[in-house]
């Protein structure tokens, strides 16, 4: 992607001049015309809602009650309310736990581990594991949620397995819902990291690792000082993408626990949904959405910075 950030393939169409500086402005605009459907859609359905979000977050907009009849500007009230509310801070906390366990630790490490192990395994095993992991990824979100609800249920397969080896089971969806949904997200999302890392590892020239082995570097040292540094870019890219994906997971958690029991697995998207639609507080809901967008934007910017500095 580095190469695509700074378009290098572009020369002037006729080959007469580079950059088309000789062309009149109108002709240049015409060339850009094919962009307009995409820009139009994104302005109306992405930029529009985001701007609307910024506006609504500072109002008392609601579907019912006083905020429905006349919408009033309330300044920072929604944000003050949010940050002083236990349910909001609880959901921020749960979102962080969910993202840390399921994306940054789970999907990322497991994906990397799988792709490393796959390089040294036999083809049959590699194909079996690859298919199983990717199968979990391709399943529609809600189907995955049902499979895992069954798996983590009190009567489910996980407890059967635990009992079989003499460990106590529990009703995971009630006793440890955030752990259950985090494991579910690992099951569902690891394929992405595995694919990214497999692609990255396949591009490391064999000679480099072989010569490190010749110099007497053992397996772990080779991994730490040769292999991993060579795929740093892939690691950063992957971490950012899966962090952002995990931040906005809704369907999986909603179908597995509905955020419960109580609010024990109510991450930010579920809290926002509840406030905006179950309680009809659109203004407050958009304020939470704005906080989410801000978190996403911060990650996006860090990611862009990383890409940019690599491209430069």
């Amino acid at each position, binding site marked *: 992607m580095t190469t695509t950030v700074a378009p290098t393939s572009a020369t002037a169409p006729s080959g007469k001049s580079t950059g088309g500086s000789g062309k009149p402005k109108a002709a240049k605009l015409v060339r850009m015309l094919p962009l307009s459907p995409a820009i139009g859609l994104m302005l109306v359905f992405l930029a529009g809602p985001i701007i609307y979000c910024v506006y609504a977050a500072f109002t008392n907009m609601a579907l019912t009650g006083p905020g429905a009849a006349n919408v009033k500007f309330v300044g920072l009230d929604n944000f003050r309310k949010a940050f002083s509310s236990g349910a909001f801070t609880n959901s921020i906390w749960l979102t962080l736990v969910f993202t840390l366990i399921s994306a940054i630790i789970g999907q990322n490490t497991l994906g990397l581990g799988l792709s490393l192990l796959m390089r040294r395994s036999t083809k049959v095993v590699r194909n079996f594991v690859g298919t199983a992991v990717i199968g979990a990824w391709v399943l529609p979100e809600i189907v995955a949620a049902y499979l895992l609800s*069954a798996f983590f249920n009190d009567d489910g397969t996980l407890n059967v397995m635990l009992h079989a080896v003499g460990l106590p089971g529990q009703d995971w969806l009630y006793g440890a819902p955030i752990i259950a949904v985090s494991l579910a997200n690992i099951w569902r999302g690891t394929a992405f990291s595995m694919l990214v890392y497999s*692609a990255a590892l396949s591009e490391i020239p064999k000679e480099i690792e072989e010569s490190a082995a010749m110099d007497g570097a053992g397996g772990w040292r080779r991994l730490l000082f040769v292999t991993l540094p060579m795929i740093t870019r*892939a690691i950063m890219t992957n971490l950012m993408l899966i962090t952002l994906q995990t931040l906005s997971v809704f369907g999986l958690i909603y179908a597995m626990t509905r955020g419960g029991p109580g609010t024990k697995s109510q991450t930010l998207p579920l809290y926002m949904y509840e406030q905006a639609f179950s309680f009809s507080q659109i203004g407050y809901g958009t304020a939470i959405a704005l906080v989410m967008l801000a978190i996403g934007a911060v990650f996006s910017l860090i990611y862009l910075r990383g890409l940019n500095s690599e491209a430069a």
Partner: protein
Amino acid sequence: MIARDRMSKLASNLVLLGIGVLFVLPLLWVLFASINRTAGLRVEFPTHPTLGNFKAVLNTDTTYRPVLNGIVLCGGAALLTMICAVLAAYPLSRFRTRFNRPFLLTVLFCTGLPITAVMVPVYGLFVQLNLVDTLGGTIMFMATSALPFAIWLTKTFMDGVPLSLEEAAWVDGAGNMRALWAIVLPLMWPGIAVVLIFTFIGMWGNFFVPFMLLLSPERLPASVSIFTFFGQYGEPNYGQLAAYSLIYTTPVLLLYLLLSRKLGGAFALGGAIKG
């Protein structure tokens, strides 16, 4: 040394197999439960396998209409995404202007935005525009949310088509759109297929967007209507739920197989994402 290599290879295989089994177990449940008349929540092979669950769900209300809705919704949105993405990718890939870089960075920035967060204002917008519960509006929003990533991928694939081929066409007097249609697209159809199928798969599984924007049961796609298995009657029929899940999943699995067999599939995609 060779003995050690063998040991490490064996260890790798064993660890991989263990992880693979953990990934397969939940999948086994759906397979077994779908042919089990008395399916429960644990993985167990049915004593009397039956196709009764499939028969029970194969009717208009439960399966045919939601699947058809899904095809209209996701097919329409994926096509719209693809058309806009190809059109947008062409000038981005072919001409250098001051506008390209900021635009591409904005697109990349948008791929990172949590769509979940945009849904509340989008719902508000849809209420204002009278678009709630319309297939057209939902198609347009789904297409837009997939666009940034699709533009990005399409441009990456288009960059792989050498510019020199078009220069000949330009000399012959062909316009840009003609060159795109006659020269660039035929050369990048595998890339187009990857983006199209990947976009469709993503939409097929998307729950939140149609869940928010569509209301009438007769318009709901399969990703949302699956919820009706948990109705007001308490415990759902797990066998039927599993059978329906399989039916709902099949199109995506077939497309994915097509993708990986014919086109290098997700590995090509992994390569494109990796940078």
